[in-house]
């Protein structure tokens, strides 16, 4: 990575770390259950003091997602959620809320939009980076270079199966922060946040000085505290939030976010 590059996302996270023991990132599948519901979710996130929100751009073949998010992607597509609607929502949210916004999506969306146009649209929208789980660093050279020209961070993934050499390679290519995956598998399942996660995060820490986000299986305030104790800088909550909304509606969703946010103090 170009050493003169300076990440506004990383700087923002560092600033937010003052006065908080761990930062909080949440997730919305744009268009699911509806664009109006998304807005209500975002209001609740802002209210709870969420630091970063992943806006997932729906894709028909979401291979890194578990059943709940697969269904959310497919229902958003069935409702006709378009790129334009996606960016409209992100633009409104960036203007209105104080959290940072990153895109989460699959590489075909980037490829079909064209890497240059993709980066330009994210930057215009006020987004700060993107997570593309099916784009390994070997294939990401062009996109990641363009991203930094637009002031965007490609947020890379580190996983427990990666060798130290691979973690170091990912570390060399990363900026903004890292998405550390707490366990094998796909999104949306319980994780045993035991000592193995601690040793995994220590391996990640050796590979990069950037903030470490921990995701996959963070579902409660207790999990957020465990993430903090293991040395994560950012607790990432995805499926559990969607589940709270599906099961209990806006109020349960808001209560869920606030209970997790309370553990970040």
């Amino acid at each position, binding site marked *: 990575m170009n050493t003169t590059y300076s990440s506004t996302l990383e700087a923002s996270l560092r600033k937010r770390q003052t006065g908080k023991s761990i930062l909080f990132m949440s997730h919305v599948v744009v268009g699911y259950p509806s664009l109006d519901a998304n807005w209500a979710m975002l209001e609740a996130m802002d209210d709870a003091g969420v630091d970063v929100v992943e806006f997932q751009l729906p894709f*028909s073949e979401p291979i890194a997602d578990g059943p709940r998010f697969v269904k959310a992607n497919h229902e958003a597509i069935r409702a006709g959620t378009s790129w334009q609607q996606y960016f409209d929502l992100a633009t409104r949210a960036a203007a209105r809320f104080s959290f940072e916004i990153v895109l989460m999506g699959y590489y075909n969306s980037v490829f*079909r939009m064209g890497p240059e146009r993709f980066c330009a649209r994210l930057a215009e929208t006020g987004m700060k980076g993107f997570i593309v789980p099916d784009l390994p660093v070997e294939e990401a050279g062009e996109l990641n270079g363009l991203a930094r020209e637009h002031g965007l961070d490609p947020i890379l993934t580190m996983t427990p*199966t990666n060798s130290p050499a691979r973690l170091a390679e990912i570390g060399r290519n990363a900026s903004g922060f890292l998405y550390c995956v707490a366990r094998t598998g796909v999104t949306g399942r319980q994780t045993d946040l035991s000592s193995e996660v601690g040793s995994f995060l220590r391996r990640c820490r050796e590979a990069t000085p950037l903030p470490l986000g921990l995701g996959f299986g963070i579902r409660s305030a207790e999990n957020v505290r465990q993430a903090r104790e293991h040395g994560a800088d950012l607790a990432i909550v995805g499926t559990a939030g969607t589940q709270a909304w599906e099961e209990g509606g806006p109020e349960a969703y808001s209560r869920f976010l606030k209970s997790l946010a309370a553990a970040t103090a």
Partner: protein
Amino acid sequence: MSPKLPVWAPGREGYFGDFGGAFIPEMLHETFAELRAAFENACDDETFWQSYVDVTAGYGGRPTPVTFCENLTRKLGGARIYVKREDLNHTGAHKANNVMGQGLLVQRMGKKRVIAETGAGQHGVATATMAARLGLECTIYMGEEDVARQHPNVFWMRQLGAEVIPVTDGTRTLKDAINACLRDWADSMADTHYVMGTVCGPHPFPQMVTYFQSIIGQEARAQMLALAGKLPDRVYACVGGGSNASGIFTGFLDDLSTELVGVEAGGKGIETGEHAARLAGGKGVPGVAQGYKTVFLQNEEGLMQDTHSVAAGLDYIGIGPMLADLHEQGRVRFESATDQEVVDALRLTMRSEGIIPALESSHAFAAAFREAPSLSDDDAILINQSGRGDKDIFTVADALDDEGWKTFIRETAARYAR
């Protein structure tokens, strides 16, 4: 003869021209590295190809013959028609070849469990037999729609000891079964191998599956020289993901006088939008999904489209990256055949030759029958019969609207209801 360093080997990072690659979640990075190493190691081992040929012979029934179809040749009145009989493999399709090859790799890697996707069910059944023979646990993912239309294969997979999981998301067909396998593997990779059934997915699968299936083309080339006294002027193969086509075409890639014709599913007609013709219809565009770059049927925002074919095994959004590249180079011509043409070709083949091709394979017959009359009797054409049609009894009986069959089903159902 081992196909080491063949003309069709991919270039950098598993690319065939602009297509291929490995677009995989980071979780599977080391797993793919392990698989690439095991495959390269096997290719470098001079005994490996022979051990593969031996198992396809002793267990699978290879070599499969080439049959001269005298009656079809006379009826169509043009080129001499030859058929490569992959239907005579154990479990009734070319899928068995690749499965036996990957079974040897599983043993070399010391894994205990296999998973596989299946469309028509042939690859699932073949994988289940291999797992039973090698004492491996086996899970097969199959789209719910395919479970419904290919139930006999579901029955056999379960009898063979495999767990069959119907996939209920997306279009509930082959592509969704592939996604389900990738998700399972992202969790189970420590003791599990994913037996990809076709020449698609991330590198090294397209190369590996082509390597094992190239046995079809190797045999067929020698058999045509012996039987017809010449190389075929045209070779026809149906193309879903493209494994049988890749297998037979690789035998003739260097023979520039042999024209290679891939036949895709025209479904209800390309103009209806209900088809799976990515190249022949000109409707597919480049994209990246399911771990690789190829030509997909997708909309302008990169969302994959619903596909349709009477043949579950051809009902797929993408195509092997090597075939996409050979299309771009002009080395393989792509055609399509509609569901109706396919059923007609199947009926003609059964009545003329007593051969029962699978609905998938019948696509290749349909395109060959369309073209054979305009060729001369000096010309020889070779059709790859990728599988046998027994599994399609429900679909074919439906398409032929067979009264006797319907009565049998009604009576059987009534007997179970009692």
